[in-house]
């Protein structure tokens, strides 16, 4: 494993992954892979999660295509140097921030959306010019194997590699040194990843989870709210990190909500849900048993719905929607704030003030108002957590930035040394005032006019002085420009008594 990482590091050091043209080619390769092998990808997802072709497409494949498209369109803009505001002392210098690749990046994927959660970060890492190791989740076996098979066929094998394996292999992998690690998964393993990263001072992006609350106000269109919540909750059989984990509402609404969700589920999946091609399955037996045990001894209102306390011990990650009655929005806010910060927060209300209040008084990775999940699809929004739901963010520009180092650069000329005399010892108090003026005043075009005026004034003074010393100037050639500038600078320095 060390050798593999070394191999990638050598490839990165050769500088091959940096030219924009190369990055574009690799991204185009990925795009071809997704388009040409769509069938294989869909089959793998079906094998892992019983995902229907349509769900596989709209939940996973589409996001990748959108992300690749975004990167290809914006690459030169994202990778370009961004000029920064100068002060007077640096007004003749080039001042900018240059995005640069970090080096070798590790992406650890998750099993619930095994394709998109490895590929979307990969797109960002490649676009930023890095070498990448992808470690898909071993729980989604088929997708993991497929990625290992397909990736080398479409992108550079020396710069991008897939490493498969379980806990043991991942632990070994984490002992290696990377320049960034992006991990999607649960909180417990997130801590292990960050601890391993600390040994090498590797920055991390952790996309974790939590219990995403969903508050339903009494002033809202209950039909619409329940429809949207049902969609978000039961997609992928509830195995979505930003699914509405539990509902908070006033007790009077509870029965109506249950009824409406029941009707919506029937609309979506038919009478015999098990037979619906659009309904997924739990990833494996262990998780199945875990979720099943959550139902034991609970008050089930419909199918997998319940409203008892034990469901809150952990993120449910299954098709079980607890409904917690609260007195009012204050109690809901307190309930939410008493818990760890979630990855997502949802609030349904016609009252914009209430929505605003919910946002203002709580914290979460992201928010969708009057809907669920959707903030994930807007790739101009950063996708990430806060507190125990994670740190860092990605998607679109944020992916590019996550996998880049923004390097500040100041390029001066070797000439013009006289101006620097201001800062050299021996020092005086008057120098401080000048230093303040030059360092702290930001360079604006209007100031340029002022400076030009000053310049003209000084030149006039020089000319007058020269005339007064009776040097015949008319026929003699003016000294060459650099010398004149030098004289001007000397005169100026002298006049400042430096």
């Amino acid at each position, binding site marked *: 494993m060390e050798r593999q990482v070394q191999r990638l590091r050598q490839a990165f*050091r050769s500088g091959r992954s940096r030219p924009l043209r190369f990055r574009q080619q690799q991204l185009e390769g990925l795009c071809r892979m997704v388009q040409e092998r769509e069938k294989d990808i869909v089959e793998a997802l079906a094998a892992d999660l019983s995902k229907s072709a349509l*769900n596989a*497409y*709209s939940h996973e494949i589409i*996001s990748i295509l959108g992300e690749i498209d975004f990167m290809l369109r914006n690459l030169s803009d994202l990778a370009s140097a961004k000029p*920064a*505001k100068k002060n007077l002392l*640096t007004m003749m*210098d080039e*001042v900018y921030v240059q995005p640069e690749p970090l080096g070798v990046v590790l992406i650890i994927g998750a099993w619930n959306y095994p394709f998109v959660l490895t590929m979307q970060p990969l797109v960002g890492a490649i676009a930023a010019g890095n070498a990448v190791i992808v470690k898909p989740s071993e729980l989604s076996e088929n997708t993991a194997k497929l990625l290992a098979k397909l990736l080398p066929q479409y992108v550079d094998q020396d710069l991008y590699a897939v490493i498969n394996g379980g806990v043991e292999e991942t632990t070994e992998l984490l002992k290696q040194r990377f320049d960034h690690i992006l991990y999607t998964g649960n*909180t417990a393993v997130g*801590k292990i990843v*960050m*601890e391993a990263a*600390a*040994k090498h*001072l590797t*920055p991390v992006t*952790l996309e974790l989870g939590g219990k995403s609350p969903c508050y339903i106000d009494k002033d809202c*269109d209950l*039909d619409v*709210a329940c*429809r949207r919540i049902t*969609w978000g909750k039961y997609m992928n059989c509830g195995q979505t990190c930003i699914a509405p984990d539990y509902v908070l509402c006033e007790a009077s609404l509870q029965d109506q909500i249950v009824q409406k969700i029941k009707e919506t589920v029937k609309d979506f999946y038919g009478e015999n849900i098990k037979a*619906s*091609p659009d309904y997924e399955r739990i990833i494996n037996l262990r998780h199945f048993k875990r979720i099943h045990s959550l139902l034991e001894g609970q008050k089930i209102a419909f199918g997998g719905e319940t409203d008892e306390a034990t469901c809150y011990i952990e993120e449910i990650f299954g098709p079980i929607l607890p409904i917690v009655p609260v007195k009012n929005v204050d109690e809901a806010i307190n309930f939410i704030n008493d818990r760890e910060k979630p990855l997502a927060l949802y609030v349904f209300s016609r009252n*914009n003030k209430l929505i605003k209040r919910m*946002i203002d*008084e709580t*914290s979460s*990775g*992201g*928010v*969708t*108002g*009057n*809907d669920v999940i*959707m903030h994930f699809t*807007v790739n*101009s*929004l*950063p*996708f990430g957590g*806060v*507190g125990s739901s994670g740190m860092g963010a990605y998607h679109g520009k944020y992916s590019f930035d996550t996998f880049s*180092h923004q*390097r*500040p*650069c*100041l390029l001066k000329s070797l000439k013009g*040394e006289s101006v620097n005399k201001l*800062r*050299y*010892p*021996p*020092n005086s*108090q008057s120098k*401080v005032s000048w230093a303040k003026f030059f*360092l*702290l005043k930001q360079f604006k075009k209007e100031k340029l006019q002022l400076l030009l005026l000053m310049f003209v004034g000084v030149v006039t003074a020089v000319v007058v002085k020269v005339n007064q010393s009776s040097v015949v100037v008319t026929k003699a050639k003016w000294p060459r420009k650099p010398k004149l500038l030098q004289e001007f600078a000397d005169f100026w320095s002298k006049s400042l008594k430096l």
Partner: protein
Amino acid sequence: MGPLSVQGWMDSFDSFEDTLRRLREAFKAGQTRPVEFRVAQLQGLGHFLGANKQLLQDALAEDLGKSPFESDISEIILCQNEVDLAIKSLQTWMKDEPVATNLLTKLSSAFIRKEPFGLVIIIAPWNYPLNLMIMPLVGAIAAGNCVLLKPSEISKNTEKVCCHPALQSCFAVVLGGPEETGQLLEHKFDYIFFTGSPRVGKIVMAAAAKHLTPITLELGGKNPCYVDDSCDPQTVANRVAWFRYFNAGQTCVAPDYILCSQEMQERLLPALQSAILRFYGDDPKTSPNLGRIINQKHFKRLQGLLGCGRVAIGGQSEESERYIAPTVLVDVQETDPVMQEEIFGPILPLLTVKNLEEAIDFINRREKPLALYAFSNNRVNQVLDCTSSGGFGGNDGFLYLTLSAMPLGGIGNSGMGRYHGKFSFDTFSHHRACLLRSPGMERLNDLRYPPYSPWSQQLISWAIGSQSCTLL
């Protein structure tokens, strides 16, 4: 928020727990969030800096032998500027940032909300004890957090100044050494900002991992300084000498060592001698413009390094004053102790390389530094393109730090994250993605609900994929 009292570590562990609890309660009650509160805090900080300039200069002189000029331009003025910038820009920075929507979310409002993390701890070092504490503090307060400050116990006099009553209403201060800091970090914080060495940086990050606390680490490294043959030696010498010996070399972004050809070295040495003479006079020990080493431990460490290679300039030291003369070393090997660790003192080794390629190779074999410098008339960009570092200075030193539009931060072993100006505000804020949809227009959503038909796939892909729509 009432004044939070200073907690001395020797008092009791419990009283510190109280401070932490009170800070969290204050944050939970929303005290630090209104813009008026933040501005008032920042103004308080600004007044303090303005009203106590003499006090601050004296403390810095005591700790590091800093001249008033150095204290002003590298600490006090920069901090005042940062405070002013934050006060002026706060409303703008705090605004929700609208973002582009895709077709599926066109009728929604999408924006990024900047939120405070909560309880922030800032651990400051001793070399620029005011700057490296106040600069992050400004960002943390501006972002609406509650702040716990842990100044360095090594810069004792500046540490005392932090306990000034005028500062106490802004934030809490805790004092202590490495052991106490370790205990402190066992508690949960919502953000940790640490400036110091890579070795301790790893310890801080490991502690942060236990609570999944996001961090910014401003560390260090050996900042290479490449000098091309095409340069005027005196100009280079002036600039390098100034940045090297500023604060007696105790600057994380100072040029640590020079890489140049043998020929250039011979021209640089007299130029460096001339610059040092001009800056500090015949006897630098008597110059009011040269600082002192912070304490005995570092003094002894630096004194040891004087034995590496051969002393070409300077080399004198005086223990009672913790004085080390501005020194240049030559004939230094890569394996010498002076090349194994960040020097952090007024010693400048010159290493010879055959050409630019060898220099770049040398630099890339080592850990990524916090800063990288290249002096050349025409090949600065080559060095820039072939290396990596926190920041880069072409034909000058760390002047870019004075620009609040430029971030200060490391990469790899020299750190992670960045700050200064708006970057500070962003560092101490959680960028929360918000999408507010209308409860109406439900028909449009039918597209996404099961049961699915083949054509809905096409429609969905078109809708999510496009960023703009000329029809709407």
